């Protein structure tokens, strides 16, 4: 295997988990998340010789998020046939409540708003970088963040909602 290919394999293995989870946060569907992550990795590999020395992870993340923003037209929802994630810690009921609360919050946002929230609060990117990666203004990122916060406050927290939802 060529050196560049070996580097890509290592990159793909280390990045795919976070890419998949980011896609899941944006779609609420694990199958679509896997497809989106795969698409992002395909496009990243197609440009690998150009980006491998730069920010390959940033490139893959931007491809993923823009792919989902452009392609996603249906509202987010949790698919009842999805398997629950394997639990690593804590109480199962609490984790299920957290997951539902999270999907409720994200589901109330538009695809672009969701992308902004995921880039800002899951990837912890500064607002200016979120704006750059999505091709929107800094003001849009700020206002979206504050709108998300309002919805979050209106929805309450997992603790205040309980698990019976």
């Amino acid at each position, binding site marked *: 295997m060529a050196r560049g*290919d070996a580097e*890509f*394999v290592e990159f*793909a*293995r280390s990045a*795919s*988990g*976070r890419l*998949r*989870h980011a896609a*899941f*946060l944006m779609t609420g569907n694990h199958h679509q998340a896997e497809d989106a992550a*795969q698409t992002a*990795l*395909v*496009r*990243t*590999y*197609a*440009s*690998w010789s*150009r980006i491998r020395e730069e920010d390959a992870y940033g*490139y893959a993340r*931007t*491809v993923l998020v*823009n*792919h989902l923003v*452009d*392609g996603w*037209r249906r509202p987010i929802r949790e698919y009842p046939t999805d398997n629950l*994630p*394997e639990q*690593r810690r*804590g109480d199962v009921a609490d*984790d299920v409540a*957290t*997951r539902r*609360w*999270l999907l409720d*919050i994200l589901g109330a946002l*538009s695809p672009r708003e969701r992308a902004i*929230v*995921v880039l800002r*609060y*899951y990837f*912890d990117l500064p607002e200016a970088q979120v704006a750059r990666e999505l*091709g929107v203004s800094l003001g849009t990122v700020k206002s979206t963040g504050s709108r*998300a*916060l309002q919805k*979050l*406050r209106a929805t309450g*927290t*997992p603790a205040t909602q309980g698990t019976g939802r």
Partner: protein
Amino acid sequence: MTELEQLRRAMRATERPYPEDLDLTVIMRDGRRLRRRRRLAGAGAAALVTVLVAGGVGLGVRWTRPPAPDRPPARVATVPDATPPATSPPTPGPTRWRPPSPQPIGEVVDTGIRYGVDQRVFYLVAVDVPEEPRVRVGLMAGRRSPAGGLTNDMVINDVQGSDRRPGFHEIGYDEATPPDDDRPPVPTFGYFVGPATRIVGTVRGRQVDARLARWSTDPELVIFWFDPVDLTPGVRLDGIVARDAAGRRL
């Protein structure tokens, strides 16, 4: 803990231990194909190009062109009008052979969109879709330099039926995200066959008017595109309608 902190924590808490089931062979194979397609489109010459368009449909198009250099020239009668004259076939040399670009059929349409000194243009080119004899043309998005040279960026065409069927045909979305470094983003474009004088796309509840131009060879074929200022290249339309001069929906 603030709400945002709670949101952050929830996003991480819901991470699953994703299994090591990446099919890297498929990813790298598809990546190589995509890279090849980009290079071919960038070079303005391809024997086989697949363009993904609305609805994830794969379009196969073979631009008609002279024979490959490692084969004897085909008979002149089989070379369509759109290809360069048979008297000037490509000369395979010891260095690098570049297949000729597909030649525009009819006039090249200038969109008014500029990239420095280059113009965004559209033109019809000959295509050859196996077992679809009524699909003979595709719509190319290209760039024209001040010297008049054309660079092909992206072609769309039907894969079944007839390229002159009334109504909308395939719509070209630029899927290179982030944008390809080798070329500027291609505006969303397509063509409609019929007496359309207005074409309006809808995206997220917003209506966007397309720019129109009639094909010089067949005025029934209306080329349309969306200015990148009105519609970001690559953003998918939720709907599109064509209207005639009386405002009737076609």
